[in-house]
């Protein structure tokens, strides 16, 4: 009678080393790396943006002679009245100076879009500053002094958050030099911020609280179709400095 010996089909004959297993693992890892690197190319996915270039409209103006002292874009607010030299027992603290409302960048953009769409309400024209630095080909709504190229959507995201980005004045100038924080924000298809999380906090309670508020208050435009999925799933990294 023949002795029957049962062996597993996976059992290798004789004494074998671990080399085949390692080779298999290396092969599998290499396949995954290759797939991660090359599959996007196969699907003709555009190269993702690592560092969006932020650009702004060039201001309408004339290039300024570099030998002249610089000018401010807008005049500072008028000074408040002088205090009385003796304390008033009944009066409340002096009211701050009345400051003329300067249109925000968003308001300027909305006005420009409304004008382009023929929906602009008649508005009092502000006297343009004839000495404003810019370019003869620039726009009255422009904010930059020179032209550069940029990514339209990320410029809009940048500007929308910047509009709400407030640095509390109680943070000393010295500390402001070293503060930085990184926030990861996920943007939904209609521009809503789905969630945000600190990747790195600044260490200053007042600054981090202000960033939280800025992101919560920002209304972003809907992302373009080619960015919608990645902004929803991977998010965008926001590096804040004062």
């Amino acid at each position, binding site marked *: 009678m023949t002795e029957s010996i049962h062996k597993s089909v996976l059992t290798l004959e004789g004494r074998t080393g671990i080399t085949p297993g390692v080779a298999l693992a290396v092969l599998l890892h290499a396949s995954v790396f290759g797939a991660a690197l090359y599959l996007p190319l196969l699907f003709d996915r555009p190269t993702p943006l*690592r*560092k969006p270039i932020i650009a702004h409209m060039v201001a309408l103006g004339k290039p300024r002679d*570099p030998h002249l002292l610089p000018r*401010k874009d807008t005049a500072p607010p008028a000074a408040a009245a002088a205090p009385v030299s003796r304390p008033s027992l009944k009066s409340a*603290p002096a009211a701050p100076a009345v400051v003329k409302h300067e249109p925000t960048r968003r308001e300027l953009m909305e006005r420009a879009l409304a004008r382009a769409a023929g929906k602009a309400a008649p508005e009092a024209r502000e006297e343009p500053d004839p000495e404003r630095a810019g370019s003869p080909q620039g726009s009255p709504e422009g904010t930059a002094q020179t032209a550069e190229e940029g990514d339209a959507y*990320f410029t809009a995201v940048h500007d929308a958050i910047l509009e709400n980005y407030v640095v509390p*004045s109680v943070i000393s100038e*010295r*500390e402001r030099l070293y503060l930085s924080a990184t926030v990861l924000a996920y943007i939904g298809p209609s521009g809503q911020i789905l969630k945000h999380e600190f990747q790195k906090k600044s260490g200053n309670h007042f600054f981090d609280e202000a960033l939280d508020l800025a992101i919560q208050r920002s209304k972003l435009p809907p992302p373009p179709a080619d960015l919608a999925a990645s902004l929803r799933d991977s998010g*965008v990294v926001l590096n804040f400095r004062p």
Partner: protein
Amino acid sequence: MIVILALLLAADRPVIDLSGGRVQAYPLAMARPLGAQDTGVAVQSVLGQDFERSGLFKLLDPASFLAPPGEGLTGIDYSKWQAVGAQALVKMSCETAAAELKCDLRLYDVARGQELLHGTYSAPRPALRQLAHRFGDDVVHYFTQEPGVFQTRIAYVRETEQGKQIIAADWDGANAQPMTGASINLLPAWTPDGRLIAFTSFRDGAGAHIYTVDVATRQVRPLVLMGDFATGAVFAPDGLRFLFSASVDGNADVYVSEADGSAGRRLTDARGIDISATWSPDGKRVAFVSERAGTPQIYTMIADGSEVRRLTFQGNYNQEPAWSPKGDLIAFSGRDEHRVFDLYTVAVEGGKIARLTQNQGTNEKPTWSPNGRYLLFSSTRGGRRQLYVMQPDGSNQRAVTSEKLGASDPAWGPLPPK
């Protein structure tokens, strides 16, 4: 494997750099004082003006407050303060005895519902303003970790019908006290210990020379009587030397001398005037105005007169340099193409110029607060020349003096001794 895939996905993320957020005052509520009302309201008034003028805080309108007026110093309903937008809250309770007043002053963090500062402050009745300034400085120090300037003094020149006199006052223009009579007295400058004010005067009838006045006794002593004129003394941070300008052979140059006026030594000898010298905060360098290149410009040099370097190249009339206590900026007044003097800062490294004032009269003679957070200057924006204070970026400009015939030549005094 999952980690690697996550890293690959993360590497795809776009990165947006955001900087240049608006610096905004911190919303602060001051609750109705408890205890002696007259004293409490007076302390609150001084404190409120300090806070607003500092640019650090935005005072909320008491009419909007939801908390009951009688809410105590403890058991605070923070949600009611949060609802009106307060992030910080100040409460006080004051008592007055015969000659003394005493206030329990507290600062709270509304968002975290915590008491941050708590102190009992007492002072003789006439020193009510000082009591308020002291708590104000403690609040500023809590938030910024830098000394506040509410207890500091300023000096300036008051115009009178008889001439110009040197005045010492609180930082907010209150408690103005004459230090001299009213001959022609100009360019006050404090010694670092705050005991003396040096000034330029025509009092001896033989041209302009430099004197000192003791702030406590008002005793005036001559300091420099050399040359046709000697003017603009500025003491080194260590108080051991001072810079001044003098014309000995018909040409104005910068000199340095021992604190008692002895051992005067000329530091500049270029053709054209060299004047308005001022120290760097470490006392190792000097900024001054020189005409050696044809127009008045700001220059720096080592304090022994070596390594002269031109700092400003824009504009054709730059004067009155003032080196910031942090050392990075020099404020100056410059005449623009409209022939109006305005205030600017120039970066000591790199020479970048920023404009601080514009289209508001003539603005001159900047002087830094000892913590570097403010600039005091003179301006004609309201008609007569008066003093104004602002932050070094040109924001939060506020009037300090309301002298009948005008005020000029401000000099900010040192921090009070601890």
